[in-house]
C-alpha cells in the first residue's frame, strides 16, 4: 500500500520535473521568450535548476515536519533532476550563447568568477549524480555521506553564481538565495540542537 503510494508520488514528481521543458517549448513557440530568446532560455534553465535544488533540500525538513520519514526516498530523484537541469542550463549557454565554442567556454570559466562558481557547483552535482547509486553508497561507506554534504556547498555556490551573473541588482536572485539560506540554517539549527540538548532532555545518560 505504502509502496504503491510511493510509486505514484515518484511518477508525479518525474512528470513535475519534466514539465518545465514542455512549458519552455510552448512558451518559445508562442514567442513568449521575446524577440531573441537566447538569454531567456539560459536563465530559464538556471532558475529551474535552482528550484529543483530548493525542492531537493526541502525533502528532509518536510519529512520531519510531516512525520513521514518515507518521503526521504524521493530525494535522490529530485537531486538527479536538479543535475539534469543544470546540464541543460550549461548546454544552452554553450550552444546558444557561445555558439558551441568549447574553448571559449573553458576560458570564460577560468576567467570569470561568476562562471567559476557555476562550474564548481556543476562539478559537485556531477560527482553526486555519479555516486547516487546503492553500489557507490556501499563502496564509499562513511565517505559517501561526507561527499554528499557537498550539496550544501552547491546551495551556496549556485545562488551566488546567479547573483553575480545579472547586470544590476534585481530581486529574483535574492529570493532564491534567501530560500536556500533558510534551508541551510534549518540544518545548522538542528545540528546545534543535537550537540547542545536542553538540560532536561539530556537526561542522566547525557548525549551519545
Amino acid at each position, binding site marked *: 500500500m505504502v509502496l504503491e503510494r510511493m510509486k505514484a508520488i515518484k511518477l508525479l514528481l518525474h512528470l513535475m520535473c519534466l514539465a518545465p521543458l514542455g512549458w519552455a517549448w*510552448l512558451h*518559445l*513557440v*508562442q*514567442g*513568449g521568450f*521575446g*524577440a*531573441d*530568446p*537566447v*538569454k*531567456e532560455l539560459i536563465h530559464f534553465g538556471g532558475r529551474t535548476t535552482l528550484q529543483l535544488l530548493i525542492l531537493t533540500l526541502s525533502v528532509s525538513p518536510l519529512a520531519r515536519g510531516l512525520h513521514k520519514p518515507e518521503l526521504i526516498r524521493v530525494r535522490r530523484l529530485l537531486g538527479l533532476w536538479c543535475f539534469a537541469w543544470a546540464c541543460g542550463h550549461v548546454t544552452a549557454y554553450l*550552444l*546558444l*550563447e*557561445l*555558439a*558551441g*565554442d568549447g574553448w*571559449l567556454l573553458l*576560458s*570564460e570559466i577560468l*576567467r*570569470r*568568477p*561568476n562562471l567559476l562558481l557555476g562550474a564548481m557547483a556543476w562539478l559537485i552535482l556531477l560527482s553526486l549524480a555519479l555516486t547516487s547509486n546503492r553500489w557507490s553508497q556501499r563502496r564509499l561507506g562513511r565517505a559517501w555521506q561526507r561527499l554528499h554534504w557537498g550539496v550544501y556547498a552547491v546551495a551556496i555556490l549556485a545562488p551566488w553564481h546567479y547573483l*553575480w*551573473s545579472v*547586470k*544590476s*541588482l*534585481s*530581486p529574483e536572485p535574492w529570493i532564491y538565495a534567501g530560500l536556500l539560506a533558510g534551508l541551510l540554517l534549518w540544518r545548522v539549527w538542528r545540528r546545534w540542537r543535537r550537540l547542545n540538548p536542553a538540560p532536561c532532555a539530556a537526561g542522566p545518560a547525557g548525549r551519545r
Partner: protein
Amino acid sequence: MALTDRDHRLRAQVTPEALFHDRRRVLKALGLLGAGASLSPLAQAGLLDLFSTPAKADGRLPLPHAKPAAYQAALPLTPEEKVLGYNNYYEFGMGKGDPAKQAQGLVTEPWSLTIDGLVAKPLTLTVAELGQRFALEERIYRLRCVEAWSMVIPWLGFELNQLLALVEPLPTARYVAFETLYDPKQMPGQASSRIGGGLVYPYVEGLRLDEARHPLTLLALGLYGKQLAPQNGAPLRLVVPWKYGFKSIKAIVRIRLVASQPPTTWSQAAPNEYGFYANVNPAVDHPRWSQASERVIGPGGLLDIRRQPTLPFNGYADEVAELYQGMDLRQWF
C-alpha cells in the same frame, strides 16, 4: 493635425494583420516553423493573445530621408522585429521584452528638446521642428551592447554637430551632457527601483565635445524608414556607434554644454564596471565577462547562432581612434 490623428487610427486598425505576419516571421526565423507549415491551434491562441500587447500603438510614420552611400554598410541587418522587441530600457523594466510591452503609452508628441549651458544661443526646439530643420539620413550602424551582443540597425537621423553649431558652444565648453525625460508616471522604472533596477533617474549620459562633434555621432529620430518606436527611445535618441549601447541615451529632453566631465548613469551605478568613455574594446574585459567576442542578433534563428570577434571601437577605429591618441584605454575604459 486631424489628418495625423486619423492616420494614427487607421494604422492602429491595420496593425494586427501586419503583426500576425511579423509573428510568423519571428517563428520562422527561430527555425520553429517549416516554410508553409501551419500553426497549431494552441500556438494560434498564443499569437492572438499577443495582438493586444506590443505593436497596437505602433503608428510609426515613415520619415523622408536620404541614403548617403558612405553609410550604407553592407552588413546583414538585424530584422526589424528583433530591434523592436529586444531592448535595454530600464525605465520600462529590466526584461528585454519589457520595454516593448510597457513603453507603448509614452507620450512622444509634443516633445521639446532644450540645448543650453555654455552656449551663445540656447535653444528649445520641438522634435517636429528638428525634423524640418535637419535633413535626415539613413545610416547603417553596428550596435554593440556592453552585455556582449550586437545588432546592425538602419537609423534615421542627423549629425549632432549640426545642432551644436546652431547653439554656438562657448570656448569654455568641453563636454556635452544629455538627459532623458523624468516622468515616473509614464516611466514605471523611475517610480519603483524594483522595476528600474535601482538606477538613479533621470538617466544621464555624456560625451567629450570632440566626440559629440564627430560626424559619426547621430541624433536619431527613426529606424527602418520610420519614426522611432517608444521602446527604441522615441522620439529622439543619441547613437554613438563606437561606444557600448548604454552611451546612446534614449528619449532626450535636454542637452547641456558643460566645462567638466558630467556624471553618467551606469558609471555612477557601478564605477568599476562601466566607465565614462565606454568605447567598444575587445582588449578590455568587463569584470564579469569577456568583451573579446559578441553574439550577433541577426536574421538567423535559434538554430543559427553566430558569434564574431568584437572589433576595436566597434569597427570604427579608422574614423575615431585619433580622438583617443595618447590615452591609456585600459585606464579610461
